[in-house]
């Protein structure tokens, strides 16, 4: 009988703890997004992005600098390049976004890994001269939530976006990655072909 009571106490405590943690996290996110639109002057640019997604690149790069912990590539030089304006050719480029959430599933990790591998294997030159970039982004972070609407995301996705003069020209959700994830070679081929098409149309 004692064990029963102890067990229920522990479980109820666990539930209570999880609920309070959940509420705390939600409140934290809410206050963050409020601060985003009202308080910080720098982020005013960002809120404009919600209305006009095509023009968001420079603001995005700024965000990558400060917030995006997931990006493994060094982004500073490229971002600095953007700030200096048109002298750098990186404002004509293709970005391959991998959008994920906070909790990562095995298949999702595989898709991210394969995407990165494809791009690194076949597009080393483009990565080097900054005409192509691979960016993993967590859409559950408040400042990245607008991507869900921008690119109509319903799950973890690989999205190619082509920018010309910092303006978004075309985007495509490579939704077939989910069908090809079980066949590495097909996956590589699919991402390679689509990326090539995006890069070529830029010329």
């Amino acid at each position: 009988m004692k064990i029963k009571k102890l067990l229920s106490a522990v479980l109820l405590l666990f539930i209570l703890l999880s609920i309070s943690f959940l509420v705390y996290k939600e409140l934290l996110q809410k206050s963050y997004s409020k601060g985003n639109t009202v308080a910080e002057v720098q982020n005013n640019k960002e809120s404009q992005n919600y209305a006009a997604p095509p023009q968001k690149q420079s603001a995005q790069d700024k965000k990558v600098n400060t917030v995006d912990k997931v990006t493994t590539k060094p982004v500073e030089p490229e971002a600095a390049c953007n700030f200096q304006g048109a002298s750098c050719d990186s404002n004509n480029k293709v970005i391959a976004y991998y959008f994920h959430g906070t909790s990562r599933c095995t298949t999702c990790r595989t898709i991210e890994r394969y995407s990165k591998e494809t791009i690194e294997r076949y597009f080393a030159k483009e990565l080097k001269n900054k005409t192509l970039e691979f960016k993993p982004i967590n859409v559950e972070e408040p400042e990245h939530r607008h991507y869900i609407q921008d690119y109509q995301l319903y799950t973890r996705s690989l999205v190619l976006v082509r920018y010309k003069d910092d303006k978004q020209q075309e985007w495509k959700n490579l939704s077939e990655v989910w069908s090809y994830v079980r066949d590495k070679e097909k996956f590589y081929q699919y991402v390679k072909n689509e990326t090539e098409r995006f890069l070529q149309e830029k010329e």
Partner: protein
Amino acid sequence: MELFFLFTAIWLGILTSISPCPLATNIAAISFISHRITHKNIVFLSGIIYTIGRSITYIAIGFLIAEALVSIPVLSDFLQRYINKILGILLILVGMVLLELLPVNLPSMSVSGKTTKKLVEGGILGSLFLGVLFALAFCPVSAALFFGGLIPITLKAQSNFALPLIYGIGTGLPVLLFAVLVSVGAEYASTLYHRVSRMDHYMKKVTGVIFIIVGIYYVLVYIFELI
């Protein structure tokens, strides 16, 4: 063509049923519907009702999208963000009720009517509720299959009842199969009814434990984001 769509719907459903999230919930569902193991008809019926519950959810979501009452990204994001979080807590609570750690007075007893009472006692209503709830728990893989696979073909075929229904049956197929096996097995086992008579009691405990474990797993993954 029609046949092709139907086949695709059930295939997507089967793929969904073995993807991580639905698999975890289906395991919980299997243990729930088989806790009345000595009543083979109830087990069988619960399996069907659970599967229908899943279908109801998918039909409802399909309807909302087809009527453009809600957009796919908004709905998918909402379900993936919140349902899984609430689900863990609910599972632990249900598990505690099954283990009799929490006293619950079923209000429906006063509603009277033998059938209602029977339904509640047999866990039939519970199975329906579980089906509806578990189908709402989307994760990346199942969201890709449902929103990226099924929804486009239901819109194309303009069949937002039959295809989600078939898909729902597909997602509940492992549970349905198990229910059939239990029904058959229970009949066989009933010849040893001396021992089996207390099996319901133990199965209920086992179910409670499984619910709590699955619940804790969900809480750790989706609330504390530890796993």
